[in-house]
């Protein structure tokens, strides 16, 4: 075992893990700035401008504020569950990035069932919310947590079923192969992305992904107007920060998966010298994820939220039959061609 | 590599823990959890044998065991809810109306 631990393979993996983890942590911070700035611009106000140029150090200021806040634990709260709930939310969110291919040779682990791994982690993320809400021993968190957990497990169904259409075309569950299968082009210039082959699945996936991460318009369980703050009402300082980081990391993970499945991952026009070509795939990947994040923040700024029963009705009665019909049609077409 | 008997022994120990839990515990939900432990131990044994003989049927059976466990958990919990509504208690010893 010692020769594995000192081999270059292991060292390279450790470097990749450190780089990806650091990058995701930084992007999560940057994302909070992007969200506040964009929402402010949509609402015709400047947003954070004081801390650093364009308010870019605002996340840093927020971090320092959270570090110095008093850590309150409610009197009758279940101490053990109260403390581990943010961890249970955070760890699966960050673990997703272990299988995401950022570039042709920039992936920590290429599992043969990589896509199922991501869905398994999504299923485990429900526990953080359910436990956090229940352990707080208070009305609003409990209601918010139950609603949010029920919403997440309902939309998980249409999330996974909408992806089956893509799997029927690509014949593989490994994320790297899914990206590689979208490499070529039709007619020389239209890229062979799955969004053109599976538009319905793409829309169902994006909507389910938004519902899965509790973002507007599906965030009734954590909204201010209805439920104080939902399941994280009683949380303060670092634990609240961990919940927020988990939510942003989930958003990035859903966007990353959407680009891998539907927008061709790191495929993009290649040009320039060899050194530039090494970096270019990662650049295209990050650009596409940025597009999705832009879309999510725009969605948050413009659309009113769903009522809870409308939300559940939509998930079970509209999205689930739609994704099943998509599977039916896709398998029919794949079978006859 | 790891000899197959080690996996089988882990499966046996887990099955035993499930059986003991089923005998000792008085809470109905804890009984259901012990049944799930037993089913998982059986899953491990199936997969270990499937890996030893090189056939995929063991893993197919694990698939079916999983499905049956899901169905049984759902109906079992619905029964637990109905019982709780009638008796306000989850102690198995309180449900002894059919005793002589």
């Amino acid at each position: 075992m010692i020769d594995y631990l000192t081999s270059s393979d292991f060292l390279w993996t450790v470097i990749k893990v450190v780089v990806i983890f650091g990058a995701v942590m930084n992007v999560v911070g940057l994302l909070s700035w992007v969200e506040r700035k964009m929402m402010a611009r949509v609402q015709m106000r400047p947003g954070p401008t004081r801390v650093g140029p364009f308010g870019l150090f605002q996340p840093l200021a927020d971090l320092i504020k959270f570090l110095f806040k008093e850590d309150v634990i409610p009197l009758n709260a279940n101490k053990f569950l109260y403390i581990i709930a943010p961890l249970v939310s955070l760890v699966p969110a960050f673990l997703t990035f272990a299988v995401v291919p950022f570039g042709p040779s920039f992936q920590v682990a290429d599992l043969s069932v990589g896509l199922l791994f991501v869905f398994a982690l999504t299923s485990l993320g429900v526990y953080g919310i359910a436990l956090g809400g229940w352990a707080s021993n208070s009305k609003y968190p409990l209601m918010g947590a139950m609603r949010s957990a029920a919403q997440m497990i309902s939309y998980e169904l249409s999330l996974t079923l909408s992806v089956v259409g893509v799997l029927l075309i690509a014949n593989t569950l490994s994320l790297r192969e899914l990206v590689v299968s979208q490499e070529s082009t039709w007619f020389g210039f239209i890229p062979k992305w799955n969004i053109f082959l599976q538009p319905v699945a793409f829309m169902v996936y994006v909507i389910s992904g938004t519902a899965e991460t509790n973002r507007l318009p599906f965030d009734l369980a954590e909204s201010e107007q209805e439920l104080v703050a939902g399941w994280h009402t009683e949380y303060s300082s670092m634990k609240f920060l961990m919940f927020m980081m988990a939510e942003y990391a989930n958003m990035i993970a859903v966007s990353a998966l959407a680009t891998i499945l539907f927008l061709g991952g790191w495929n993009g026009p290649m040009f320039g010298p060899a050194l530039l070509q090494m970096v270019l795939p990662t650049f295209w990947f990050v650009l596409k994820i940025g597009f999705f994040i832009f879309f999510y923040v725009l969605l948050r700024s413009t659309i009113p939220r769903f009522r809870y029963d409308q939300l559940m009705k939509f998930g079970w009665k509209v999205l689930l039959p739609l994704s099943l019909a998509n599977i039916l049609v896709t398998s029919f077409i794949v079978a006859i061609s | 590599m790891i000899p197959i008997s080690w996996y089988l022994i882990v499966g046996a120990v887990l099955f035993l823990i499930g059986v003991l839990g089923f005998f000792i515990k008085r809470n109905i939900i804890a009984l259901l959890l012990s049944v799930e432990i037993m089913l998982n131990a059986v899953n491990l044994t199936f997969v270990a044998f499937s890996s030893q003989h090189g056939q995929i049927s063991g893993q197919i059976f694990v698939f079916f065991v999983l499905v049956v466990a899901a169905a049984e958990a759902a109906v079992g919990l619905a029964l637990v809810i109905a019982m709780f509504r009638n008796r306000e208690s989850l102690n198995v010893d309180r449900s002894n109306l059919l005793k002589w």
Partner: protein
Amino acid sequence: MVQILFFFFAALAVGAAINVLAQKHVLYSALSLILMLTAMSVLFVLLRADFIAMINVIVYAGAIMVLFTFVIMLLNIPRDEDGADRLRWLKFIGIPLGLFFLFLIVATLWNVDPVRLAQPELVGSPQAIGRSLFTDYLLPFEATSLLILIALMGAVVFAKKDL
């Protein structure tokens, strides 16, 4: 390397299973069971059954245990009200008998042909499982879908307050 992983996760699985029995509050038992399921998932991966490992987490830990957790949280069960004063002797007979049972099983299994694990010509890849599931085992597969439908209807009927 594989041996260290095996020992660690086997110990974790057994420890979590014992914790399921040892906890007074049933919610902690359910959470220990989730830990046991993820440890078993790693053991499945060591046996080269990747698909079953992921399905174990998605279905068992991610759906069935969520169901258990919801029921426990919504029924708001107080701490374990043991009727154990009448049956305290059960622990003292049960555990020695159980250890004897374990000794019997281990003695039987120790004489199993100690074939080293088959080298990975069998990998529990999704392709292999799909091929077998849809050709040799198609009838049980369709029957389980009927089973799930019946379980669904049964659960709804039992849990309704008024029909």
